[in-house]
């Protein structure tokens, strides 16, 4: 078997890496891993809010993908395939932990409550850019079901019909949970901004 050669002046392209990985080339596997590790890991981390678990899931997602790489025919983008697999791996883990993948209802909250305004001074508007760390912390503090929908839609760009198929809910449910997630995040970010403003 010929040893995989790198392109002059650069690494293997994704397509070449896929073909060589099918032949068992170690460099090719590593190339594919390096190309996609950040995206997969970030997804796992956003959805689980736990670094150790996110690493476990990243490992599992890549292993599942690499085991099936012989069947990849290029009908869809490799990254799409990997991404879907990663989402499924995370959702299976959430189900295994008996955590609600999608909360069907939240008895602690109603639509009226989410738009309730506190009496007194007007609420300062949430404007400008939100720094990465603040939004990361805010997302981590969301309940798992809300976090899943928010990460899949607003962070990773899935459409509601795709989310509904992935998590096993209706499109309407996906939309309403996303709205609630955004409302909660808005409240968290406004609170943290207000607290920061108070700090000397």
């Amino acid at each position, binding site marked *: 078997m010929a040893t995989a050669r790198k392109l002059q002046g650069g690494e293997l392209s994704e397509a070449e890496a896929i073909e060589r990985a099918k032949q068992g080339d170690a460099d090719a596997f590593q190339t594919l891993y390096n190309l996609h590790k950040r995206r997969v890991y970030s997804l796992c981390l956003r959805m689980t*809010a*736990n*670094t*150790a*678990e996110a690493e476990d899931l990243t490992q599992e997602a890549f292993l599942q993908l690499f085991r099936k790489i012989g069947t990849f025919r290029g009908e869809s983008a490799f990254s799409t395939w990997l991404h879907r697999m990663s989402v499924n791996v995370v959702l299976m883990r959430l189900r*295994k932990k*008996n955590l609600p993948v999608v909360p069907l209802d939240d008895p602690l909250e109603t639509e009226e409550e989410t738009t309730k305004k506190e009496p007194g001074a007007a609420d300062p508007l949430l404007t400008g850019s939100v720094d990465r760390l603040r939004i990361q912390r805010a997302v*981590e503090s969301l309940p798992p079901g809300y976090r899943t929908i928010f990460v899949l839609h607003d962070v990773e760009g899935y459409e509601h019909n795709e989310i509904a198929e992935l998590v096993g809910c209706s499109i309407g449910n996906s939309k309403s949970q996303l709205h609630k997630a955004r409302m909660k995040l808005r409240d968290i970010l406004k609170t943290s901004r207000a607290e920061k403003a108070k700090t000397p």
Partner: protein
Amino acid sequence: MKTINRRSVKLALIVVVSAGATLVAGETKKEFRFTVRPGSTVSIVNPYGPISLKPAVGNQVLVTVTLHSDKVEVSHEQSGKRVELRSQLLPGADQTSGIAEYAVFIPSTTNVNLHANTGPLRVEKLHGDVIVEAVSALVEVRDINNVHVHIKTMNGPITLSNIHQGHVEVTSISGDVNLNSVSGPLVQVNSSSGKIRYDGDFGAGGDYSLTSHTGDIDAVAPAEAPIDVTAQTVRGKVDSDFDLEAKRIVPRDDNNKSSFLGKAWSLVKLRSFSGKIHLRKR
């Protein structure tokens, strides 16, 4: 001025000698502190030597490392929510000279990740995930609730005590595994030749799976425990105080767990290829 200086020097000498008295010649002690946020992970890689983790109040991780010789050093790194400590073996280090003893106090919500060859490793009273991989280390984890506990050893014995409401996954090739008062939605133990002992209530409507190749499986549970037990062996023997033949017909709820008289039933699966399976009523 001279008198003060002499006294200061004497005091300094006394302090130094006292501090050094607890260390054997050649040993050095190092201390590290890290400020962490909730949900952080502390990862320790220590080929030789014990690691002990206990909870502390506040948001600081305090690590005291006793190095047994100059053939081992400690490197550390903090990045985001991750703190990593690693014992680096220098040329000429072996399993005696390379020993580093870790005493760690961490905020209880911190996740823990330990890698070791010899240990022993002890973790107690935490509320963060506990992941341990050890070759021959004795592993003891106790008083942990509602988190993931994942332990892997090759032949190190494992003892889990008072672990509840979390996911427990244990694998040991030939180390014995002892579970005392361990319950939760998932408790899974896999062994090849090590013995598996369970003494608890198989509670919480969980899935319990104790599997071995040649190791014996000994389980003790309350007589009235709501458990649906299957015991399988290819070449071994099954000895059970519980009725393994009776079929239970109860409705299953949406989470696919049975419930009977308001109590969630647990599914208990005991499987050994050629070991003996004993299931006794307490």
